[in-house]
């Protein structure tokens, strides 16, 4: 996994609460046996007409957001199924962070394993960012994991929480399985007494 460095980007707003993983990537795209191409199906039913042409009113079909690396979503983002295809699809599109006031547990865990940062901000900060984007769709936001801050277009900084282990893994490109495998001895000891 590559190291997660600070970056600056415009923000694609998708201000819907409780966006479930069936919307992020509908189940019919889960028949793949690899991770490739998921970005094309991101938000498929919101993004495309039945004939496959883009729905012009959907935010990600606005040419401006083709380069967006940050998605701004409503509360409880990623609820529903455990499909890791959801972060694969978001990453496949090019997103590196999702900003929301809350995330569903399994989605958050999956996102962190794929270099997609769930940025949990206060309702006030969320509202502030929405207003900035309403005023200027090109407004830039900086996400800095090291300092755990989001810098809003006016230069004000909002902090976000992340557990120290996930932060360490993301910043250093450390893979969780590699960490787990270091405990082979402890696992063996555990197995010898666990019924």
């Amino acid at each position, binding site marked *: 996994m590559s190291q997660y460095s600070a970056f600056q980007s415009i923000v694609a707003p998708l201000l819907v609460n409780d966006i479930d993983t069936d919307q992020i990537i509908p189940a019919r795209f889960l028949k793949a046996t690899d991770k490739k191409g998921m970005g094309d199906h991101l938000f498929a039913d919101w993004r495309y007409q039945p004939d496959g042409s883009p729905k012009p009113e959907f935010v990600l079909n606005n040419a401006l957001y083709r380069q967006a690396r940050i998605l701004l979503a409503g509360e409880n983002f990623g609820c529903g199924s455990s499909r890791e295809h959801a972060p694969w699809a978001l990453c496949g599109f090019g997103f590196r962070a999702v900003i929301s006031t809350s995330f569903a547990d399994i989605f958050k865990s999956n996102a962190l394993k794929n270099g997609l940062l769930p940025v949990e901000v206060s309702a006030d900060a969320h509202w502030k960012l929405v207003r900035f984007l309403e005023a200027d769709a090109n407004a830039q936001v900086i996400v800095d994991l090291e300092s755990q801050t989001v810098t809003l277009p006016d230069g004000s900084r909002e902090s976000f929480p992340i557990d120290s*282990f996930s932060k360490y893994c993301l910043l250093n490109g450390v893979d969780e399985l590699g*960490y787990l495998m270091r405990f082979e001895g402890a696992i063996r000891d555990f197995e010898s007494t666990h019924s």
Partner: protein
Amino acid sequence: MIQPKTLFEKVWESHLVAQEPGSPAILYVDLHLIHEVTSPQAFTGLRQRRLNVRRPGKTVATMDHSIPTHHPSLPIADPLAAKQIRQLEANAREFGIRLYGMESPNRGIVHVIGPELGLTQPGMTIVCGDSHTSTHGAFGALAFGIGTSEVEHVLATQCLLQRKPRTFEVRVEGSLSPGVSAKDIILALLAKIGVGGGTGHVFEYTGSAIRSLSMEERMTVCNMSIEGGARAGMVAPDETTVAYLAGREYAPSGDAWEMSVQRWMKLRTDDGATYDKSITLDAGALAPMITYGTNPGMGMSITGRVPDPDAFSDASQKLALKKSLTYMGLRPGEPLLGKVIDVVFIGSCTNSRISDLRQAAALLKGRTVASGVRVLVVPGSQEVKRQAESEGLHRIFKEAGADWREAGCSMCIAMNGDQLEPGQYAVSTSNRNFEGRQGKGGRTFLTSPLTAAATAITGRITDVRTLITH
């Protein structure tokens, strides 16, 4: 004095392998269930790292999501689904994992066959790349859904890195009225706390109403814990649990059985232990429930009226409800009773067990499905199917005009060709009414099997209490 502990804490602590300061716990996994949809990329990861499956005997595989529910002798029409199924067969063979394959008499939805085979046992940690793994918590196991990276972690190490969740007691007291069932308990909870109300928590269901539920009913309740945001939901084991497990293929036997039962009966929350959150529901006050919106938290009593977005002060809630009602084609203030529907689906890991089918069949017996309504009855496993057929339930369904199928997830997730057409309305015993969940553009009302069967008969959303004789 020993610190009193919750059921969750007891199971968690007995599976802690190690924990470094500042890092998540390393939790040992007793049972790992895999299916065709969320496992292929995990096996690819293993091959890329040249790793083996550490404990092949602790992983069990089956295919359920993308398999057709027509007769197994017919070929799988969808080449992608066929490839995914072949991939699971190849992975199980290569890594020595037990597979309940297409031809197996024990094949079925992973959350139906685990308990049915006695693989699911109290006090275990159970995981699967599937959010409805919470089902197995009905046995007092700590069971939760994981992503595909974590499937790979478990295959390689039999462990997971986990942050300790908080606890949330859901106490349900009293007794259910006729026509009201376990599904209505969980839909009522979700309507109360919303789809994010349990985030970061593990539910423990307690109280007299939960105690009086059968194991299958407890599974229905635990199954939808994730719809409230809780990755797991648990019920402390009791005599009902023990009676269910006795004699099952993988349940302990002989002396080991006696010892296990003794151990299981201690798995309960100690007096004086505290939960981080709690809520109480009165089972006696519950009516049959139905969802009106596009998440399982948007539910109400079947006699209720669709809420008005303008009644909400919070702008984002107002917007969410408006969006849902537009998708559902419903007007604020409209009653759902009497609404004409196109499809009834009885199945899924929530409600496809033998007791669910018996309830539906008891209503359908001697009656017929309303004309123009498609009714699909999909047993949760081939074992459920055999049992139902031995009781003649399949004849009742067929004579009523319903379609009787082979086991699988079917129209709950619409990956296998069983799906709604755009705009169709379905009353479904499954667990998710998300946009497009049962087919692109399809519109879902979640209910109990009783309400679904009553609706099948009239062709309109029906209060089952009007059809049952006391």
